[in-house]
């Protein structure tokens, strides 16, 4: 059956043949030899890495069973379609939290491995792959095997960050983080520019498990690079209360003109000046600390029917300050940025995945409404900076990097080819490898 399964950026609107995964013991789906398959979770990748135009998507939403939960050791095994949302509901009352989490809980564990997702605690814990103990891979040749650091370890490394291309991940086992409370002690500090960000960050990364900064990318001149630095530690105050369900949902596209440089700069201005004091301490529930946008279901529709891009890069530490400053200058000059600009430094935990994105350096992520050529022109300029400073772009966010850039950012793709399942592919993969 053909369905419209979108990616989060909503740039592509073509219907794709979908097959639903039903039971974990089922075989690799039967399909015609001319078509390829791609596992699809909740479609939170922004570009086309979760799409498979003209081919088949394998929807994993019904592979949503827990297999085991050891509430004394803090270890969980579940099917690949189980979401972070479901996991939190189960583990929070037992005093456990996810080892790391991106800015939404509406992702599947299969997707968390495929994109080797990271969070605000990368400098302490690494990416999701660092906490994975083992998983099972189902290949199109009918084989099925467990992968871990000691068993089939080369498959383990290829599949973490492997964009779902090495086989269908059927189940995953990973370690949890012990907590005493569902709340986070948060300190927010205003900073006036990039230099100050780096000063704050150096101290905070030692003291705080979670750090991230929001940047006003529309501020110009002397205000350029101003923002709010947010740092937090799991609290021991209050209870182990789980999050409520989403209250609001946007089901219709906003008109395309709603988000323009005026409305966005007003938002950013208000956000920056909402906090009057230089520094503010507060107690925040994990749901509002990690997932502020989840309470607004379907927020991607505010960008209208034209869709939007996200651009996320990581630049090695030694070039980080200069490159970030230059990127912010270009973005500010273009006036195209939106309110969701995030700056963070990644730590030096070992990078397990062959194609994993997170690595020691400075990462900048922000949304851009799809303004056609003007947006593409800005991206080309940003690409130059990323290239020249030895950085890379994040496939899970990407809808437009060139094949040349991908192959130079991820030279490991050549050795990865050996592990890619011949019957699995994606729109992204065909685009960046020209196959």
């Amino acid at each position, binding site marked *: *059956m053909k369905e419209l399964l979108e990616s989060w950026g909503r740039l592509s609107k073509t219907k794709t043949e979908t097959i*639903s995964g*039903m*039971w*974990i*013991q089922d075989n690799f789906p039967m399909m015609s030899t001319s078509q390829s398959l791609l596992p699809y979770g909740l479609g939170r990748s922004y570009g086309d890495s979760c799409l498979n135009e003209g081919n088949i998507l394998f929807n994993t939403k*019904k592979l949503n*069973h*827990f*297999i*085991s*939960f050891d509430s004394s050791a803090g270890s*969980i095994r*579940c099917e690949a379609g189980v979401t972070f949302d479901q996991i939190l509901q*189960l583990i929070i009352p037992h005093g456990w939290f996810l080892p790391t989490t991106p800015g939404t809980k509406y992702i599947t564990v299969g997707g968390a491995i495929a994109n080797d997702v990271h969070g605000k605690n990368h400098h302490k814990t690494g990416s999701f792959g660092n906490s994975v103990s083992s998983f099972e891979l189902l290949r199109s040749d009918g084989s099925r095997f467990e992968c871990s650091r000691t068993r089939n370890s080369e498959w383990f490394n290829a599949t973490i960050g492997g964009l779902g291309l090495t086989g269908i991940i059927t189940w995953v086992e990973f370690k949890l983080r012990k907590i005493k409370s569902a709340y986070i002690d948060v300190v927010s500090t205003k900073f006036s520019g990039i230099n100050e960000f780096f000063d704050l960050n150096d101290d905070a990364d030692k003291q705080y498990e979670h750090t991230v900064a929001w940047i006003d990318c529309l501020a110009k001149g002397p205000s350029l690079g101003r923002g709010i630095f947010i740092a937090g530690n799991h609290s021991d105050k209050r209870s182990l209360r789980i999050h409520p369900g989403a209250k609001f949902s946007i089901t219709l596209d906003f008109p395309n003109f709603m988000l323009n440089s005026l409305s966005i700069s007003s938002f950013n201005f208000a956000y920056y000046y909402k906090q009057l004091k230089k520094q503010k301490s507060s107690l925040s529930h994990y749901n509002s600390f990690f997932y502020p946008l989840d309470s607004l279901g379907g927020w991607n529709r505010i960008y209208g029917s034209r869709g939007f891009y996200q651009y996320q890069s990581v630049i090695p530490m030694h070039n980080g300050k200069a490159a970030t400053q230059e990127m912010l200058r270009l973005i500010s000059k273009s006036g195209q940025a939106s309110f969701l600009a995030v700056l963070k430094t990644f730590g030096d935990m070992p990078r397990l995945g062959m194609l994993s994105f997170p690595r020691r350096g400075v990462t900048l992520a922000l949304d851009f409404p799809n303004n056609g050529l003007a947006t593409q022109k800005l991206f080309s300029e940003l690409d130059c900076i990323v290239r020249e400073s030895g950085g890379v772009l994040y496939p899970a966010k990407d809808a437009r990097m060139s094949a040349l850039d991908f192959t130079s950012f991820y030279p490991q793709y050549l050795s990865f080819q050996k592990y890619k399942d011949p019957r699995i592919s994606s729109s992204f993969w065909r685009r960046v490898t020209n196959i």
Partner: protein
Amino acid sequence: MKFKSIVIFGASSAIAQEVARQATSNETHFILVGRDEHKLSVVASDLKSRGAAAIRVVSGDLINFSEIKALVDVLWNDLDYIDFVLIAHGSLPDQVRCETDMDYACSQLEINFISSALIAQLAANRLKLQGSGTLAVISSVAGDRGRQSLYLYGAAKAGLSTFLEGLRHRMYGTGVKVLTIKPGLVDTPMTAHLKKGPLVSSPKVIAHDILKAMVSSKDVVYTPWFWHWIMLIIRSIPRCLFYKTKL
């Protein structure tokens, strides 16, 4: 309300799984009955991970009518008191095939009517001996009016609803509650091949309604609620107009 011992027939169905998940507490004992042992074990470890106190899996052929009675006896030997029985197995037949393939049509009537009705009867007999408990059976809105596109299934579910109406009458005053559940179109593996419109509901919503109805005074529940009104309209369309539709 917490249920302490729950028996589910057709426990690997999507709706049954959701009911079980939502009813799970650390005091819940489950007996999961169904045909496929592997699927039942997937459901069992899911419920165990979610904190259920104990789970037993019983696999059996629910259309082997000579075995059904022994099967039900086993359940009550296992637990001396059962407070909630859910009958959730069923199959959505290919109507066109039912029109010419009589063996197929017969097996569809067996699974959707005879099996559910007989199990309901046996379970009600046991609940009556206990003097309490709730029996919930999943019927369908399709039983409310025969229509060309699905009348064999509709007839089986109409038969089931009528059977339950009589069973409820018989159980009146015994302390046993008999609940008829009539879901509309639900997004489950059973309906995976059908086109989905705006009226389709998730098994989660259906399960929530079932558990709510368990503790209410209702005997027959449409889920989600709007199917009550849709079926009221469909039942009242005059034949001369109804036959012109493609329904």
